[in-house]
């Protein structure tokens, strides 16, 4: 089992990171020339999106490992990461929505990245629902692993299709090659928050995986007792 030490360390680091991020985002970085204070939501929205993609990538990798090796830990990590991913994606969309309302005048737009992210959210909500509906845990793990793999592989295809369909979202400020369009001190705030959310993800993941492992341990003990 993953140790409490790691969990605690990540927790402390995450809190420090979030505090640093809050400071950087709300006090250190200057307000945007065009959008004003509202733009600060970017320091929440962008890290949340990026970390949720990280979470789903982890689901992808651990799903493959689970099918290959049938190790319960991989399934526990996949399940936990999917839950956190869904949470972060939902929050990211909500944050984006709050950002969008004063900026573009609408709560929702059908632009490429928002649509892709929402489809991703739907796929992984389906993933969690599937798990909840399958009674036998090892079958549930297998089904989810397959869905996790296909869902993640689908993401680039979804992205391309939606981008070719329409584009309205501001061009990627972090992931675009070439000189960054974001001011340096804003970049600092962005990366600080990104690091903070990665740590937060790590903390939640470790905590959740420990819970899953405790459950597996319990059922293993029960199995030995009954044999």
């Amino acid at each position, binding site marked *: 089992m993953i140790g409490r030490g790691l969990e605690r360390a990540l927790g402390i680091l995450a809190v420090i990171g979030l505090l640093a991020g809050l400071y950087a985002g709300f006090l250190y970085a200057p307000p945007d020339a065009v959008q004003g204070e509202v733009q600060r939501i970017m320091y929440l929205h962008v890290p949340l999106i990026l970390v949720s993609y990280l979470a789903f990538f982890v689901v992808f990798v651990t799903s493959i490992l689970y099918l290959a090796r049938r190790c319960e830990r991989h399934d526990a990590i996949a399940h936990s990461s999917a839950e956190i991913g869904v949470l972060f994606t939902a929050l990211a969309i909500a944050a984006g929505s709050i950002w969008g309302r004063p900026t573009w005048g609408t709560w929702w737009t059908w632009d490429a990245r928002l649509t892709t992210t929402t489809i991703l959210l739907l796929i992984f909500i389906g993933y969690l629902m599937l798990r909840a509906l399958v009674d036998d*845990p090892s079958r549930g793990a297998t089904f989810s692993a397959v869905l996790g793999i296909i869902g993640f592989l689908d993401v680039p295809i979804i992205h391309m299709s939606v981008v070719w369909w329409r584009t309205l979202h501001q061009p990627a400020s972090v992931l675009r090659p070439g000189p960054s369009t974001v001011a340096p001190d804003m970049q600092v705030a962005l990366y600080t928050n990104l690091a903070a959310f990665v740590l937060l993800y790590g903390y939640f993941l470790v905590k959740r995986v420990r819970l899953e492992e405790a459950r597996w341990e319990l*059922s293993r003990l029960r199995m030995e007792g*009954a*044999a």
Partner: protein
Amino acid sequence: MVTPDGEGRMPGPAPAVETRRLVKWYGGYPALRGIDLCVAPGDILALFGSNGAGKTTLLRILAGRVRPTAGTARVAGFEVGKGGDSARGAIGTLAHGHQLYETLTATENLAFAAAMLGLDRAAERIAQVLLRVGLEAAAGSSVRTFSSGMKRRLALAKLMLRECKVILLDEPYASLDLQATKLLEEFLMASKIGGAATILATHNLTMGFGVADRLAILRQGRLVFEGRRDETSLEAFRALFSLHGELGDVE
């Protein structure tokens, strides 16, 4: 581990079916709790037990349909799940549900089975088995029009399409008419002579006892008895069975 004759003597030919500490858990429910079993070629093992004892689970693991939680099982020379898809070809099964497609005719059902089994001379074999089970007149009729006895006979015909090394039967006597029962017994004897190992899981004490070489009782996932048929009598066995508290379910 219980050896085939219960006296510590090593078996002669290599067993056609062999399990060691076979365990199967479905979620939190233990279906099999460590089964050690051995069936030699040419032997018929009658497996008794009430509903939920684990008979169907055991047969499905041996058929390669279900993956065991722990332990090993070797069937027809291959370890289950490791022999690849072709290993299942030597195993013939007769399951609870008749596994027939109701909207197709008898011939079409058998033709499909022959294609899936990769058999040659399919038409010839189909004609032969239909004759053997007495369904040649109904060959072109839709299975939906069949009585349950006829459906069972057709399922048996499917089994007869080729020689199997291992035969697994789950409640074969259920809904069988007299003619079909006779056919089944003939088939079991013929297969036995042909060297096939058979495991027959049933409620029906009388019928199962009648065909068996070996007897076993499964209770709540454990093998509580295993022995030779010629070392006991039907009455004694019945008494033994009720000792294990199962008689309420059984004929």
